[in-house]
């Protein structure tokens, strides 16, 4: 019963987050519709095309008349970068496109203290300095009256408690009480808007100074594009953790390629054997069918226990990830051969070996290529995950270590590079498929 209650609480938390995100999601959808509307308006201005598709009157529900709009793709990608820049105050964008940033610079507010029936004002000078710098609070004159002026310096995005009465002649201990900030009355638990943000009062009467954080993301959550780019240049030239960027990525790719090739070298003959012999199919079916649904990631702990965190362990893992996929692809490639093709080859005088060489293997190649594409994708995902767990070098290791040091720019850069490489692998496989097996799906 506690389990159900716990799960319900978790679900509630998830739903609350979703509801909180809803305005942003709705805003994004509206942006998509707006861009689409604008583009359709612009398109009407251009010369109308009269290809076959544009002359169709029934388009809603006709799958063949829906194709990916290149303009939409370009705008969507550009918009991601624009939004990224807008919310991080990127230098790549003109200033008017930035969201309001966090308060930085100097400001001040006044406070009013009452003690023993008297009232006095004093000023607090605030300096908000950029992260990474260290600025001392400015020197100020104490001023007249029993309430003395104060000064405070704090880094951007932070807030700070300040006992403004600590230097006053009549302090809290003498019964003094702050009654107003910038002329607006304040009580314990209340707050007042000031020029640079908010000043609130704790239950005990201490002021908490919270300079405005604006709408921009703090670099620790989301660094700006130029920060990520400069980090890319820095790591590409001087490296990260004793290895250059090329070494990190190269090691990941090396593991994937070696693991995949070994998996294919073993898996394809295994699949052929399963497709051609009852005995082999009976023998390996239970093993393959059991291993196939086991996610390769679940094998990581065992592989680390058996083979450590070095190259051998990684390659064993990727070998296992590729093996079953390739075996199943080769098996279905062989089983998918039309019997009339085999019969035709026999009637044309082909021997068993010739049938294998000229009919069964070419017929299975399209399936094997599909399997190889899937296997490469799985291997790439698995290698990154395995490196996240433990590795000396590699793309996954790079972002994991960076996250421990809160170097969000490196994490972001790593994720982008991992995505680009994964996408490139898939594109290369597709291209190779078109080039090597043009008869795919034409039987």
């Amino acid at each position: 019963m506690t389990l159900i209650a716990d799960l319900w609480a978790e679900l509630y938390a998830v739903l609350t987050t979703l509801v909180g995100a809803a305005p942003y999601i709705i805003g994004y959808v509206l942006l998509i519709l707006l861009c689409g509307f604008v583009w359709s308006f612009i398109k009407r201005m251009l010369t109308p095309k009269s290809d076959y598709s544009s002359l169709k009157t029934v388009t809603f529900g006709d799958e063949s008349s829906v194709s990916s709009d290149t303009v939409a793709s370009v705008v969507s990608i550009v918009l991601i970068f624009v939004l990224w820049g807008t919310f991080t105050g990127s230098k790549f964008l003109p200033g008017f496109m930035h969201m309001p940033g966090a308060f930085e610079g100097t400001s001040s507010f006044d406070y009013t203290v009452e003690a023993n029936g008297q009232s006095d004002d004093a000023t607090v000078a605030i300096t908000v300095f950029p992260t990474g710098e260290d600025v001392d609070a400015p020197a100020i004159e104490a001023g007249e009256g029993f309430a003395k002026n104060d000064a405070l310096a704090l880094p951007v995005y932070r807030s700070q408690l300040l006992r403004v009465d600590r230097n006053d002649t009549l302090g809290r201990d003498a019964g003094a009480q702050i009654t107003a900030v910038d002329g607006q009355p304040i009580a314990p638990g209340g707050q007042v808007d000031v020029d640079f943000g908010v000043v609130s009062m704790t239950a005990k009467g201490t002021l908490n100074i919270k300079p405005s954080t604006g709408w921009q993301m703090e670099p620790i959550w989301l660094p700006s594009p130029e920060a990520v780019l400069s980090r890319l240049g820095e790591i590409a030239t001087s490296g990260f953790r004793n290895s250059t960027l090329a070494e990190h990525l190269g090691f990941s790719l090396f593991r994937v390629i070696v693991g995949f090739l070994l998996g294919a070298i073993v898996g394809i003959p295994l699949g052929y054997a399963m497709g051609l012999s009852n005995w082999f199919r009976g023998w390996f079916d239970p093993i393959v069918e059991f291993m196939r649904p086991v996610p390769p990631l679940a094998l990581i702990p065992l592989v680390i226990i058996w083979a450590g965190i070095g190259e051998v362990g990684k390659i064993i893992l990727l070998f296992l990830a590729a093996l079953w996929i390739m075996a199943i692809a080769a098996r279905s490639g062989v089983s998918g051969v039309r019997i009339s093709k085999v019969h035709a080859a026999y009637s044309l005088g082909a021997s068993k070996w010739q049938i294998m060489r000229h009919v069964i293997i070419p017929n299975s190649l399209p399936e094997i290529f599909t399997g190889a594409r899937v296997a490469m994708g799985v291997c790439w995902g698995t290698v990154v995950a395995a490196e996240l767990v433990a590795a000396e070098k590699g793309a996954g290791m790079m972002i994991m270590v960076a996250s421990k040091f809160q170097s969000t720019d490196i994490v972001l850069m790593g994720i982008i590079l991992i995505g680009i490489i994964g996408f490139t692998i898939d594109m290369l496989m597709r291209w190779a498929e078109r080039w090597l097996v043009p008869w795919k799906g034409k039987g």
Partner: protein
Amino acid sequence: MSGLQIDKLSMRFDLPNGASVQALQDVSIDLKAGELLSVLGPSGCGKTTLLNIVAGFLAPTSGEITLNGTRVFGPGPERGMVFQQGALFEWMSVRENVGFGPRMKGMAEKPKREIVDHLLNVVGLQEFKEKAVYELSGGMQQRVALARCLANEPDVILMDEPLGALDALTREKMQGLVLKLWKETGKTIILITHSVEEALLLGERLIVMAPRPGRIHKEYNLPFAEMGVGQDLREVKKHPDFATVREEILSMIWDMEEEIMGGAAK
């Protein structure tokens, strides 16, 4: 002894539920070299089983097949086969498909190319020889299949509804081509078809088979194939005998079909 002898062929196979099906019973056909036999019958009468046994893809329960005095056991290049469709190798060009048989025999490149070029001329595909087979229309693909079969110089050509998937116009043209090839090459041909008209037009001899068990119901010797050589096939169809025989066979097959349906209704 030349020609193809099919002697008392029977085929029975057991189903998983314990019952058994008599696909063929005592089918005997004696085919002289150079004869064209068409085989007709309602579905399930064992025509395709018969052809698969002659081709050597199936072993009969009893009976035997003899070609030119030699008993047949498995598939072999002396019995070429033309399938309905989908039996071309789509990873090879038209030329490679036609040259497949000679290549399997290890024939040298030059004589092989001569055979392929000659046959592509005969079937009228000379200009398509470098194309991939999936770029051709259905009728052209069947021309390739015919040429591929002929390239191997088989003694017997077995055709399993080779024109069944073609549209009516293409089919008519292809029937003329089959007749022409038969006359020019002098091959023995067994043609299985669903179309009574096709069976009459192409078959020098015609066998109507009956189902349950599959057996020979009636045999005809026909003049139309001879008439059709070098003539418009539509003229042959106008012949009064053609219509008579066609009606006779059609009603024969209808009766059989009705019997099957009646049996199923009980």
